[in-house]
């Protein structure tokens, strides 16, 4: 069997992945396996293995001249490396990425651990949307006194900066090592 990446050497590394009944198979020669980092599980990337193999349909049909305004990464780079330039790139290239991410993973949304400040932001968002709902009900039932109270709460809550920004800047709050 020939290597899927170089179609040249004999393949000796066989990778298979089945997720939700969808099977992906890649056969590589030792050189290509090494080049694609099929080594250490701690750094192994299924994305690397797939990059340059077969067609990346999503990349083909989406807009080609996209560029990240934060880091300057382009669609061409994405196609070449199967990597992103910065965290903002995920927004810029979301169309191209969605299919790729879907094919790589078990699901399409994160359900694990979140940073603390993010949890607080999310709680605030939920609280605000609840209050807005209450406000609507109060106005509809012509309970204007109640509506005014709710409006005040909303104003107070939304004027608060989000918890992360509220803290002293990381540099000053973080104890610098003495040594």
């Amino acid at each position, binding site marked *: 069997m020939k290597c899927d990446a170089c179609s040249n050497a004999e393949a*000796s*590394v*066989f*990778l*298979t*992945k*089945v*997720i939700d009944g969808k099977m992906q198979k890649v056969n590589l020669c030792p050189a290509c*396996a090494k080049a694609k*980092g*099929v*080594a*250490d*599980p*701690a*750094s*192994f*990337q*299924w*994305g*690397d293995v797939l990059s340059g193999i077969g067609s990346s349909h999503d990349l083909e049909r989406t807009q080609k001249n996209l560029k990240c305004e*934060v*880091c300057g*990464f382009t669609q061409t*780079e994405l196609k070449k*490396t*199967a*990597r*992103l*330039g*910065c*965290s*903002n790139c*995920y927004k810029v290239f979301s169309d191209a*990425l969605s299919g790729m*991410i879907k094919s*790589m*993973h*078990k*699901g*399409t*949304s*994160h*359900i*694990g*651990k*979140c*940073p*603390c*400040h*993010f949890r607080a932001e*999310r709680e605030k968002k939920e609280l605000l949307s609840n209050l807005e709902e209450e406000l609507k009900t109060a106005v509809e039932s012509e309970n204007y006194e109640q509506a005014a109270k709710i409006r005040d709460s909303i104003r107070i809550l939304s004027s608060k900066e989000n918890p*992360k920004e509220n803290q002293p800047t*990381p*540099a000053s*709050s*973080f*104890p*610098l*090592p003495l040594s």
Partner: protein
Amino acid sequence: MKLSRIIANTGEWLTGDGPQRHIVVSSRVRLARNLRNQPFPGWAKKGERIEVMKKILPAVEGLPEMAESFSEGMESLSPLERQVLVERHLISREHAAKGAGSAVVMNPEQTLSVMINEEDHLRIQAILNGLQLEKVYEIISNADAELEEPLDFAFDETLGYLTACPSNVGTGMRASAMLHLPGLVISEQITKIINSVNKIGLVVRGLHGEGTEAMGNLFQISNQTTLGESETQIITRLNKVILQVIEHEQNARMSLVESRPTMLSDQIGRAFGILGHACSMTSKEALNLLSAIKLGADLELFPEKCRHAVDELLIETQPAHLQKGASAPNMDAEERDTLRASLIRSKLSAIPAPDHSRLPKPPTTQIPD
């Protein structure tokens, strides 16, 4: 702390006394984290990488676990020192190739290490001996929580932690365990096991990442996907599969003891003979023969105390470790093979020959734990 002092200590995880130690060598978890709106290391210019490193270094060195850490820029480490860290699985091969703007920080026990500017801004890794993935995750999750305070991690509501490669988004977590599976290899069941583990979205690879033909009968099992499952779900699933593989390995060993005791005795005895008398040995041969001695120790053909000697040899006979020990930076492969053989001979001279009488009367219950 100096690297030489770190290296002089065999890492805590290298001494095989953890849970399920007859089969599981070590458990490892790594997390990928990045700073928001900062170019990822692979795309950043050198100056930007150095800037990011300056932000991250004090945060990492400030972790309570890193009170007496070893912390060094990659450019200050010699190729040999880097290779030693790779052989101990403390940094990746990719990281070993990095220069200015990348760094490594680790605790003296070598159970927690952080690579700065590898493929992601941070690659945090925790490792313990035996099968204890939950505990390893706890260590790493605490470190992560400490770091998110001073560092603004890139996180998205839908995609979770954002990483340089989309194959790591979500949890950014890769959990793995290293298993010693001579029973499944000798009884030729290993391919079947690897295939069935692969089919459920986990990956099996050899010690240094080879395909199915692993050296020293050592295999790593890890999760492949990071999005759509929580950290706990991933670890629970991985653990469950590992326990099944352990059971298969135990069964394979038991049936070999019952049905082919002579073959087993022969393999272990020959390994002991060659290791004890050879004058030149490649690392591949050493690994495979030491695997047989390890199996012999599990089956009580050798006294308990020889287990440590074998575990140490598995680390010390790797090329960079040998060279470091000999403090001869310019050895060629042939010289290393000679040195390797002599190191093994001297260490093995303290171990009595295998007690073959143990084998025809195999324990009727499980392999002792």
